């Protein structure tokens, strides 16, 4: 790695909770994206994972700083040290995801391993394209409650050659490509909805 490319760390106010939530959420997303990058042999997805890894690294510094500022006595320091230990462990998960992404980026033939492995497991990752006539168009992913309805999580979306991972407020558009995680049955239902074969969301 080129050292001069490392981002300078500067304190900014962020709560311990906020920082750790973000680190944990990002690391989980990164593992899913890293497996997706291998499964679909996508260097672009792998690059996305590497970028997220840098975000996590920065957040871990901020977590450490805010925990230091939050500790007022020995008791709190003791209990916050547990938080930091968890933060550093979760950071290792993010590093592991980056390691997987780098294997994909090097163009190594690891994808067959992952592709065969995914044939043997319950929880699947799918790439689903949204058709113009789908009832999903114009809907916000967060409003659809796909997790509660069909047990599927959309983890990333590709639009005009860029990946969007902050999906909270995103409205679905035609030709979007969704990466979704869930059981095969739920994914098939989402595929039918996305391709416009099923017109009802329930």
């Amino acid at each position, binding site marked *: 790695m080129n050292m001069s490319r490392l981002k300078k760390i500067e304190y900014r106010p962020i709560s311990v909770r906020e920082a*750790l939530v973000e680190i944990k959420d990002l690391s989980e997303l990164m593992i899913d994206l890293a497996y997706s990058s291998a499964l679909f042999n996508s260097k672009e997805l792998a690059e996305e994972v590497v970028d997220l890894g840098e975000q996590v690294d920065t957040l871990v510094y901020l977590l450490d700083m805010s925990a230091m500022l939050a500790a007022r006595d020995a008791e709190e320091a003791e209990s916050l040290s547990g938080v930091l*230990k968890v933060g550093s462990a979760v950071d290792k*998960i993010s590093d592991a995801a980056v390691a997987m992404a780098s294997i994909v980026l090097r163009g190594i033939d690891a994808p067959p391993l992952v592709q065969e492995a995914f044939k*043997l*497991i319950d929880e699947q990752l799918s790439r689903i394209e949204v058709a113009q006539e789908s009832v999903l168009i114009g809907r916000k992913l967060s409003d659809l409650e796909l997790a509660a309805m069909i047990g599927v999580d959309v983890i990333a979306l590709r639009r005009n050659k860029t990946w969007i991972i902050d999906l909270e407020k995103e409205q679905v558009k035609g030709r979007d490509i969704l990466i979704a995680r869930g059981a095969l049955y739920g994914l098939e239902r989402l595929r039918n909805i996305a391709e416009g074969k099923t017109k009802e969301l329930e």
Partner: protein
Amino acid sequence: MDEQFRKIVKHFVELKDTSEIMLDLAYSALLLNSKELAEEVIRLEDQVDVIHRDFQLLSLSCDLLAENTEDRLGLIEMGEVTERIADAAAEIAEVVLRGLEPHPVLRMVIRGAEETVVRATVPPNSSLIGKTLKQARIPEQTGMWILVIRRGDAWMRPASTMMLQAGDILLASGYAEGREDFWGLVGEERRRRRR
């Protein structure tokens, strides 16, 4: 598929599954401040080390990759990824084993403030025995979803086709209000005392 490669894939699946179960258990251990669950994570880490070693040996001896050392290295590195996740889970479990009082922030981070993790053992007279997880409709009826299932010495991730047996230990997560319904559905007697 090549027999050797098939074996490698199987080992990889086991590594992936076990490391993910460990992570779920480690977070649950933290939420419940449960040394018992934390120790289970550590025990699974030993198991991962053994599977990982076998995976490495198989990857080194796989004839399919004889000409391509880069691919062989990639395979070995993929195994390492799962092993690193298992290590991270063990580190989280260690926080509990060290007797550090879990900071309130951890609870909020792991499940959101209202969510909780509960466990129940399927009694011999449970109405769920012989039903698959899908037929048991636990999330639909209680709002709790199963994180992991322990049967004998093995921890298993929930699969919809898995048939429930007496003695299965279910670890479930969801909103605290669902706890009583969950214990009721499973038929666990201890629930009255836990109120």
